[in-house]
């Protein structure tokens, strides 16, 4: 597994990316955004959905894949209620209860895209690695179902989930985002090496 120093380095990577993402989000919404200290989680697959309210909690998910010198997956989860609050703030119109219109989906996807791009840009800058993200893809469903896709991709590599996670929140309108970076196994080594942390294997 990882040494304490490696875990610290990964947390710091999370911090640099998330800091930049929070700034971008704050500029986009013209709002004060608070950010949780990112954590590096190594937990059973089945426990991941508890972070976002349990496997059957209704959430929106925005998925992007990272390609380039390192690869991995980014998933941004916005619980349904918070997604509605965000849309009301952005579009000044309350969404329907049961579904999102194409316009609303597109707005949520674009916010996700901005968060992910800012995160990846900061990371790429810091580690001097080239990375790109794919076109974002949107889903609205049970949290367990949405998480299953990136978790399964990681499942080829390990028996437990491994990810860097943080939360962005805005208090007044109750807007809240969960950010997951799930790097591919090999990429972790590349990433740690790029920032000068040696590996004890």
């Amino acid at each position, binding site marked *: 597994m990882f040494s304490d120093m490696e875990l610290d380095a990964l947390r710091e990577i999370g911090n640099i990316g998330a800091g930049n993402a929070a700034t971008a989000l704050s500029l986009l919404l013209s709002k004060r955004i608070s950010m949780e200290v990112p954590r590096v989680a190594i937990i059973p*697959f089945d426990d991941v959905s508890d972070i976002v309210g349990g496997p059957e909690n209704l959430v929106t998910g925005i998925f992007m894949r990272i390609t380039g010198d390192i690869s991995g997956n980014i998933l941004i989860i916005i619980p349904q209620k918070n997604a509605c609050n965000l849309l009301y703030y952005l579009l000044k119109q309350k969404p329907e209860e049961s579904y999102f219109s194409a316009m609303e989906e597109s707005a949520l996807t674009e916010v996700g895209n901005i968060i992910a791009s800012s995160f990846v840009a900061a990371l790429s800058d810091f580690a001097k690695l080239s990375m790109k993200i794919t076109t974002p893809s949107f*889903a609205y469903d049970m949290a367990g179902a*949405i998480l*299953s896709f990136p978790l*399964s991709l990681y499942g080829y590599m390990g*028996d437990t989930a491994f990810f860097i996670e943080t939360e962005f929140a805005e208090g007044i309108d109750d807007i809240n985002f969960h950010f997951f970076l799930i790097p591919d196994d090999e990429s972790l080594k590349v990433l740690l090496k790029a920032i000068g942390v040696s590996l004890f294997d």
Partner: protein
Amino acid sequence: MIETVRVGMAEYKAARSPVVLISLGLGSCVGVALYDSAKKIGGLAHIMLPDSNLSGRRDFNPGKFADTAIDMLIGDMDKIGADPKRITAKIAGGAQMFQIKSDNSIMQIGKRNVEAVRSKLATLNVKIISEDVEGNYGRTIEFNCETGELKIKTVGHGLKII
């Protein structure tokens, strides 16, 4: 009160009636419900991935993969008295939650999971009597070991019993 037993991602559990086996929020994962109707013994596997040969590690949890989880589940059902020759299957899940433009078939996990489950069950001569698979939405499934019914709940795509 009927006991409900939760089967999480990459887990498999066998049980004797009266028990309801449930898996919450299946996305690309496939739920394989196996049943010996004469003995009222059921089993549920919550499969994440198609093929253990693609595992990056030699030492892995067999519950993750279609080819290994189904063998393990049938073994456990056998141990509590099921006759493997009598076992039938119902399967659900295998959705593509995100529409991703990619030539890489690894991105189509749901579809590949369903194919892998079908081919593993065929190899073992286990008949699939009903299924509710693929699509782009999540499913919660409840498998009743008393009746052999598999209840499928969705968000916005109705409720089904297969």
